[in-house]
């Protein structure tokens, strides 16, 4: 199911996110995704997140499809040239994948193979244009394609940045190039998000606000120091520091943030970073999902 079809139907769209493992065993990931799927509309599968070598996003998306899980295929410009990127998009269609999220990709210097030659043959705006063009039945140099290509293309934006204007200019270009939904970097302050949404009023595209599940105050401080565009306000850091149950507090904070921001946008993208099983509780706390009632164990006579 294309995310745009859901958005067009008026549904508040919810996406989750998982990262393929380092290795070949997908059983745990599929299990985690299955706990996530009832509460979300689709699950992003990252493309070698943090520039680290993992099992491929495309293969994982294919396994998800086989398991009735709806994937959003993440594709970065870091590791493949225009020939491979177009070919992978054709492969994705052949495997029944319908949603693709196009990103620049973290630089190899940030990952586990810093000696690697970065590719970046095309950038995210150009790749969106190329993918849109494939949908018109031609590759980027005008050769005809057989078969039909109808992908729902998405892109990302960083809503909190100084300066912000370059992000907005790039967002305009991404939408012009064919992005039909936007997922944002994690947001922890509804007033910041409101400012961002006001600044992009002129851009007609559904926005899925990014929510990162906090695991501890240390993680919050680490992100504040090291992750560009992520700002966890001090009261939230304190709330995590004083939490009796980190998991419960994390769920409460995420649920609260979604509640505060859901009327400003068209959906939410939850980055649970291994806490996939908490996502249904988060969505329940935000009033977007009803948790299944726990079955009472039958007494064995």
């Amino acid at each position, binding site marked *: 199911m294309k995310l745009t079809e859901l958005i067009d139907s008026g549904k508040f769209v919810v996406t989750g996110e998982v990262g393929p493992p380092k290795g070949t065993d997908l059983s745990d990931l599929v299990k985690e995704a299955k706990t996530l799927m009832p509460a979300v509309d689709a699950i992003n599968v990252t493309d070698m997140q943090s520039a680290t070598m993992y099992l491929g996003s495309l293969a994982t998306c294919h396994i998800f499809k086989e398991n009735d899980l709806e994937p959003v295929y993440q594709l970065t*410009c*870091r590791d493949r040239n*225009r020939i491979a990127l177009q070919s992978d998009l054709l492969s994705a269609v052949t495997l029944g994948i319908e949603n693709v999220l196009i990103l*620049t*990709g*973290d*630089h190899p*210097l*940030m990952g586990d193979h810093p000696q690697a030659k*970065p590719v*970046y*043959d*095309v*950038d*995210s*705006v*150009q790749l969106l*244009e*190329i993918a849109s063009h494939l949908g018109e039945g031609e590759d*980027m140099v005008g050769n005809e394609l057989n078969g039909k290509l109808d992908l729902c293309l998405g892109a*990302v*934006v*960083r809503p909190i*940045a*100084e*300066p912000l*204007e*370059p*992000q907005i*200019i*790039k967002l*305009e*270009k991404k939408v*012009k*190039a064919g992005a039909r939904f936007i997922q944002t*970097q994690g947001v922890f302050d509804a007033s910041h998000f409101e400012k961002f949404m006001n600044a992009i009023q002129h851009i007609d595209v559904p926005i899925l606000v990014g929510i990162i599940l906090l695991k501890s105050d240390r993680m919050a401080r680490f992100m504040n120091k090291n992750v*560009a*565009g992520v700002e966890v306000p001090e009261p939230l850091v304190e709330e995590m520091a004083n939490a009796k149950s980190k998991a419960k507090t994390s769920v409460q904070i995420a649920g609260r943030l979604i509640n505060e921001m859901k009327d400003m946008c068209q959906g939410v993208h939850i980055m649970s970073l291994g806490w996939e099983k908490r996502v249904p509780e988060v969505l329940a706390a935000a009033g977007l999902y009803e948790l299944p009632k726990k079955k009472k164990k039958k007494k064995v006579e």
Partner: protein
Amino acid sequence: MIVADQKPINEILGMLERYDKVLFVGCQTCVAVCMAGGEKETGVLASLVRLARQKAGQPIEIDEAAIQRQCEEEFIEPLEADGYQAILSLGCGVGVNKLADHFGIPVLPGLNTGFMGHIEEHGVWAETCAGCGDCVLHRTGGICPVVRCAKSLMNGPCGGYTDDGLCESGTGAPCAWIAIYKRLKELGLLESMTETSPPKDWSKDRFSGPRTRVREDVRL
């Protein structure tokens, strides 16, 4: 100019291990300006190598020369290399290639050639042109995104720049696109950032084999 760095002394000693009569050739243009391979650096390196080999009980005979430009035949022509087992060039990689083509003996690189750049301040050189063969500087306020952006992005910054305007890669380099944005804004030309740049033709870069420029009108 071409900016280069001298190779680590142990690497140089390793390359010279099998020789005991060598000519060191410096270059008096770019690498002299960036203080890597001029006449002075050639002399210092030769002394170091002589000392190290003496100490190791394997003395080496080194003669020194420095020519104006190792990349031009007219400056190489007068150089005599008869009787030497090898040449150690302190020119950039272009010079090493050129000397190796000219002389029938091994030519070893004394430098690691880095980039085309400018002097930022005394003792600091910065890369500002990639020689990509398809200049876009008129659209980017004179700041090159091909080489000054670690990802060679053509349509604006990624989401990785810090609040201080630095690149996410952690190299300490400024984000090229934040610099471009500020420059274009100052110049009143921000609209050129809003126009989408098409995919670049990298075949004009070095990825299609060595590039040659021919001007028929000036050929002899």
